[in-house]
């Protein structure tokens, strides 16, 4: 049997999703019948039809995941988009069932919901506290007992009888957090919600979480913000494509492993695989980081090196609304800048042509701090549609910049700043 200290034990957990290509999630009977008929027609008329027919594919969002969580742990779960973090949380909070494996949870689990999920905009703050409490599994008199504390924590006394649709987004989050935090669950699951709300409130949330973990509550925290994970957690799990990659009490090491992406991802070159990146206006075929002599960058560079981002793309249809460029993210997932090929006056835009295009842009290494950076290829039709949205589906490559960002004898170590521009000082 599992020892009593383990509040959660996860054993051989796997979750399979069936992906339907070329299919909508909501079907109507009519569509299903029409699609079946169309398929038969297509097959009999044109065997090599390029119109894709529906296929299904099994996708393992989690594969053989094992870990245990001890009472009072503050576990941070990190990983890239699609690594399985949300699926794991969904299973832990019982929204969906595992396909294989077994989880034992000793006690009550509650998750801090995405802003406004448990709220109804027409109801007042008071009514919503009861609603949200009940959704999270609180008994009505339990909410009644905690009511004053919740209101006080959320700082919404004056607006208790105002419909929450008139609340600011900050008040919304405060209320949501207050309800979940006062539920006194044995396990509190927090999924990237603290990004909203002002700094003072965030601080209060973190200290509240600290308090509750001292009282023996367990916290599972999922975030892309490495600084929040570092501040809050005393244990870390780094998920990588459905597997546990790092499971360690050394939080910083976990973060480092994630940032360095010890696996495939830390590549300075990207090539498309699959059909996800095909657009007639712009289909990238290559994204890579090269030096002044067009050689692929290998390993870390310094701020004095010359690094170019090269984009190779096919264009079948010219659209003047096309804007493509790059976005640069730091280790903590903060976006440092976007740059589009249309950023200057129209005369200075590079002229794109039908067929293969090769574009390049030099990265401003001298203003960056040391660390690992993600360069994303972003683009779309201006104000109409994203092809590659920053942080969502953009192809990316990684650049490692040395911590030695200056030649000054006084600037030998990395400063705790986002940027490291070397400015020239004058005396008048």
């Amino acid at each position: 049997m599992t020892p009593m200290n383990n509040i959660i034990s996860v054993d051989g957990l796997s979750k399979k999703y069936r992906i339907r290509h070329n299919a909508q999630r909501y079907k109507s009977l009519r569509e299903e019948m029409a699609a079946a008929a169309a398929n038969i027609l297509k097959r009999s008329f044109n065997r090599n039809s390029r119109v894709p027919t529906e296929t299904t594919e099994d996708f393992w969002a989690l594969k053989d995941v094992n870990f245990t969580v001890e009472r009072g742990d503050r576990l941070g779960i990190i990983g890239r988009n699609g690594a399985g973090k949300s699926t794991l949380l969904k299973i832990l909070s019982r929204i969906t069932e595992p396909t294989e494996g077994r989880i034992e949870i000793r006690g009550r689990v509650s998750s801090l919901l995405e802003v406004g999920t448990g709220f109804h905009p027409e109801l007042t703050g008071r009514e919503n506290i009861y609603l949200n409490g009940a959704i999270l599994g609180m008994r009505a008199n339990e909410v009644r007992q905690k009511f004053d504390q919740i209101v006080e924590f959320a700082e919404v006394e004056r607006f208790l009888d105002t419909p929450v649709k008139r609340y600011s987004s900050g008040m919304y989050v405060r209320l949501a957090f207050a309800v979940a935090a006062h539920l006194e669950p044995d396990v509190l699951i927090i999924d990237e919600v603290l990004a909203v709300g002002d700094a003072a409130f965030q601080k209060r949330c973190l200290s509240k979480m600290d308090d509750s973990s001292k009282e023996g509550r367990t916290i599972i925290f999922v975030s892309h913000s490495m600084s929040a994970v570092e501040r809050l957690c005393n244990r870390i799990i780094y998920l990588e494509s459905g597997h546990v990659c790092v499971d360690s009490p050394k939080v910083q090491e976990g973060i480092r492993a994630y940032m360095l992406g010890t696996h495939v991802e830390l590549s300075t070159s990207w090539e498309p695989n699959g059909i996800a990146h095909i657009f007639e206006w712009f289909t990238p075929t290559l994204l890579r980081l090269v030096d002044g002599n067009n050689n692929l960058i290998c390993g870390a560079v310094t701020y004095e090196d010359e690094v170019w981002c090269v984009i190779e793309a096919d264009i079948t249809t010219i659209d003047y609304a096309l804007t493509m460029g790059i976005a640069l993210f730091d280790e903590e997932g903060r976006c440092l800048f976007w740059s589009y090929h249309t950023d200057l006056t129209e005369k200075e835009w590079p002229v794109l042509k039908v067929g293969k295009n090769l574009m390049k842009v030099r990265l401003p290494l001298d203003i960056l701090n040391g660390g690992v950076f993600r360069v994303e290829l972003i683009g779309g039709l201006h104000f109409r549609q994203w092809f590659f949205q920053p942080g969502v589906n953009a192809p990316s490559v990684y650049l490692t910049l040395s911590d030695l960002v200056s030649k000054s004898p006084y600037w030998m170590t990395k400063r705790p700043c986002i940027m490291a521009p070397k400015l020239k000082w004058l005396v008048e």
Partner: protein
Amino acid sequence: MTQTIVVLEPGRIDKHYWRDVFQFRDLFWVLARRDVSVRYKQTVIGILWAVLRPLLTMIVFTLIFGKIAKLPSAGVPYSLLVFTGMIPWFFFSSSVTESSSSLVTNANLLSKVYFPRILVPLSSILVAAMDFAIGMVLLVIMLLYFGYTPTWRLLSIPLFLAVAFSAAGGIGLLFSALNVRYRDFQFIVPFIVQFGLYLSPVGFSSSVVPEKWRLVYALNPMVGVIDGFRWAVLGGAFLIKWDILLISVLISVILLGLGIWSFRRFERGIADVI
């Protein structure tokens, strides 16, 4: 310290399902209260709708079936005959409509939090029960106006209400699940409900149905409910027929069982589809 141990593994939800339903019983009331108060907050004349809708329908039906078609009413004022049919019917029809769409309207909740999903369609029936209560108040006023005195038979109303609840709940559960997968059902449900209004003895007494078809007619569970309701309220000429009532009860229990069974089968994958 009592400690609940939750075990999650494939197919496990089934094992403590009803225990969970019990644990989340407060949510049932809170969701219902939310639906009721939201409904009256968003409309201009609010609660008046619950009064106007049956009253206006009653006037139209009395004119069409009573005055124009001149159907028999066994000596009871025709408007009263219509109204006693309409109260249980409206309870049934709005229960089916509300619960059928309930999963879709609560989609964001279902994909974010765990609770026994069956609470959602069931609690939406309470909104219809609220209208039912208002209708009962109107009915009492009408009875006093027409000089009827209530009898002990009124005590049997909860029984008929329970039959209507279980029929509506069964159909609602089935449709709410289907509605998530096939959005066609949001068009099919109003159609069925409208059809059912004319198939049920709402605007007329079930005595106009030829004797040999009565038992077939009773396959519509609302026939037994409405007949029983009229017997309970008006008495006199409206006799209760045990065979008809029995069929209605049986059908509604079967519907509820079917509804729960299909809902449970579907429920597991709900968050992945919605």
